């Protein structure tokens, strides 16, 4: 099998595993969709003053896409890889000829498939039921999604490398994630200039949310690219990749 075919081969089995694993299918896929329905319904008809009085859901749909991508990449990889490492599955894999980069490419591509599905469902639901207008620029949306998937996948691998055992994984992974979602304006925009907004700006989620929101923002002029936010995301991608490469282990910690 050539390298590309082998990555495809991996994606096929990663996908089967993803959908059959209740932990990933439920917590990382069904969760964002549940939030979407609850918050979009609660805030239907509301407007956001800070963002030029656009409808709440025109903001919330992109925000939940960003949340979903982080969930499908970061949470699912951080918890999944820790489990695989501690149960010995990764060590077993290391004894086969499968190259490490093929394995990680397969994981990343499989996460992208989930992200694309989540995004498609979220946008469709938003347009059909919550009066959201479709994104006016597709390329910036696509670029933001791919960069987000790469960044949060790398972050997931990095966090799994620093997580000592499988029992601790859900707490170590999910607690900061939810805290981050609240301060990064996933559920309601954070007031500009506030302490919380300053704090959130050090982390990648608010920038990713901005980058996904821009192509949906009816008041946004220009290309739909937000250079500053993409730069911060790229920085996090590089930093996470460094940590992942430096500290990733194939064998259980005992």
């Amino acid at each position, binding site marked *: *099998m050539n390298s590309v075919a*082998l990555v495809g*081969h*991996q994606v096929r*089995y990663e996908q*089967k*595993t993803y959908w*059959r*694993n209740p932990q990933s299918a439920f917590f990382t896929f069904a969760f964002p969709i549940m939030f979407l329905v609850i918050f979009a319904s609660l805030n239907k008809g509301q407007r956001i003053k800070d963002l030029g009085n656009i409808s709440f859901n025109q903001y919330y749909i992109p925000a939940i896409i960003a949340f979903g991508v982080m969930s499908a990449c970061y949470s699912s990889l951080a918890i999944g890889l820790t489990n*695989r490492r501690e*149960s*010995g*599955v990764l*060590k*077993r894999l*290391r*004894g*086969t*000829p*499968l*190259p490490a980069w093929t394995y990680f490419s397969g994981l990343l591509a499989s996460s992208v498939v989930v992200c694309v599905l989540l995004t498609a469902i979220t946008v469709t639901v938003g347009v059909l039921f919550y009066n959201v207008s479709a994104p006016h620029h597709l390329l910036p949306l696509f670029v933001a999604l791919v960069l987000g998937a790469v960044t949060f996948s790398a972050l997931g691998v990095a966090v799994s490398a620093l997580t000592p055992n499988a029992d601790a994984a859900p707490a170590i992974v999910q607690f900061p994630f939810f805290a981050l979602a609240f301060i990064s304006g996933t559920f309601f925009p954070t007031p500009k200039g506030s302490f919380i907004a300053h704090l959130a700006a050090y982390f990648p989620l608010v920038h990713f949310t901005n980058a996904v929101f821009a192509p949906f923002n009816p008041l946004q002029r220009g290309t739909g690219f937000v250079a500053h936010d993409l730069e911060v995301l790229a920085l996090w991608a590089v930093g996470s990749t460094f940590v992942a490469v430096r500290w990733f282990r194939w*064998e259980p910690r*005992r």
Partner: protein
Amino acid sequence: MRDLRKSYGDVVAVRGVDFTVSAGEVFALLGPNGAGKTTTLEILEGFRERTSGEVAVLGVDPARGGRALRERLGIVLQDTAVDPFLTVREVLTRNAGYYPRPRPVLEVIDLVGLGEKAEQRVQKLSGGQQRRLDVALGIVGNPELVFLDEPTTGFDPSARRSAWELVRGLIDGGTTIVLTTHYMDEAQALADRVAVIAGGQIVAAGTPETIGGRDTAAVRIRFRLPPGRSAQDIPLLAEAGPDGEVRLHTEDEVRDLHTLTGWALEAGIELDGLTVDRPSLEDVYLELVAGPDDEPAAVTR
């Protein structure tokens, strides 16, 4: 492998191990827990770097072998680990895709006796079935050399027998096998050659028949005397064990047995449980492992 050494900090796990395994041979590393078996094996498999010494696996240094070497190896680790959400057939089909010339998946499934479980998810298999799947994953790449680290630990006797049959099937196919075990009977049933490892060193090596001088060791004669008789009454040098069994060791078993039975017949005594044998592999092993240096230093996890 020549003069292999491995230390973890101050702890020396392997202190100078030498052995050579020829193509098509079955080689067993026998030893108690913590003797250095797994450390030695994991260096051969490429999981661990050695501290010093020379190692070649299929002519290649396993620390630098990479993908090309792993395409020719089958590795079955001590702990079973398979993705729980895939079926037996899916896991094997996936892993078969990693190798240039894999064996047919269904053939491998039948070989390990999981034919009826092919469409079952791994998480629904019993422990023994998962272990068999583990072995199947080790051989699906059609390897030239298979490493089996304690393949039957925790098996019930009948499961062990069928695992042995499986390994014998591989042997017939010409695969070279290096296995570790702490069961003597397993080494005896499968191996062409055995090395006993204790305290990080090989303390004896040879075929299961000759190891530790088994073939030339003194013959043992054992029996029980009726009440009122003691070992001193016998016209031979014998001693009674704490359990009342009388033992004597001899280089001239025909003559001594004649003397003993002649004495018993004349005195009208029955020799209960009369047994004549050479030390079993297990006896040899226990003696070797107990050896003079009971150093607690060698610990492998």
